[in-house]
């Protein structure tokens, strides 16, 4: 679990770095730390995996990724770990999870593919199926984005 100081650092860093020459200094002052202490703490929290990535989050659509497909794979649960590892190995896959199977929902492996077009996503999924032998899959394209926000932890 996080210490109170770590929680405060999370709150500061999720609000964003101030665009000033010494952003760590500005945050450190608010937390009652030295600038160097804060920098060390951020490094340590990154090493521990609490901070998954430190830097800019960029909107993909603006960089030429126009199609985003969620590909769901109907793989028996006992084969799911193998399928997950194989499917995660494709460079076009940005996310790969195994999720709980539900009545009426047989799909256990979820992959996200970003491509330039829908057709490209379909080709990629087809190639993944052919190479892995997992051929029961469906592509779910997003037709509109209703919300995209970053989680504000410890905000209530």
């Amino acid at each position: 679990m996080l210490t109170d100081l770590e929680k405060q650092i999370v709150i500061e860093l999720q609000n964003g770095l101030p665009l000033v020459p010494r952003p760590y200094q500005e945050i450190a002052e608010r937390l009652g730390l030295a600038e160097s202490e804060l920098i060390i703490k951020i490094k340590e929290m990154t090493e521990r995996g609490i901070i998954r990535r430190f830097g800019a989050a960029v909107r993909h659509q603006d960089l030429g990724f126009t199609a985003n497909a969620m590909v769901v794979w109907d793989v028996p649960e006992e084969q799911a770990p193998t399928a997950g590892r194989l499917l995660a190995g494709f460079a076009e896959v940005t996310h790969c999870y195994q999720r709980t199977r539900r009545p009426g929902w047989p799909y256990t492996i979820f992959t996200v593919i970003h491509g330039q077009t829908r057709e490209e996503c379909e080709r990629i999924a087809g190639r993944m199926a052919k190479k892995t032998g997992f051929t029961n899959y469906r592509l779910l394209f997003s037709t509109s984005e209703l919300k995209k926000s970053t989680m504000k932890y410890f905000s209530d």
Partner: protein
Amino acid sequence: MSLDQTDKKILQIIQSDFPLTSRPFAAIAESLGITEDEVLERIGRMQQSGVIRRLGGLFDSRKIGYTGTLCAMRVPQDHLSRVAEIVNAYPGVTHNYIRSHEYNMWFTLLAESEARINSIIKEIKTKTGITDVLNLPAVNIFKIRVNFNLSEVQNAD
């Protein structure tokens, strides 16, 4: 907005390798042969136009002590905006997309505990009157990649 080569180089650096030094923008400036002011100005502009969604930390919700799930909901076409309003009002709902499937509304939900997740889903069912909601928590994570290599993007054109 259109990005020039310098903007793209800045994006590449700050996406994957943001300097953890006293004057990070000066360090970026030095590697690109421009001034610190120019780096700050360009990043500010890209933030304003929305190319940069956020400059800061991206956290592992599990390690922070939060738990998350993906939910899929079967919503009649003419109820989409009403249901979206109810679902999106929860701060723990960070992403919500309409997808091409009978389960058409897909949203991610984060909360402090599994019990809270379950109670939020129950609330959503009650408030929307829609009971067909799949709760699909991850049991294994094989890959999460959040940053893209810009040169990859350019090569793909």
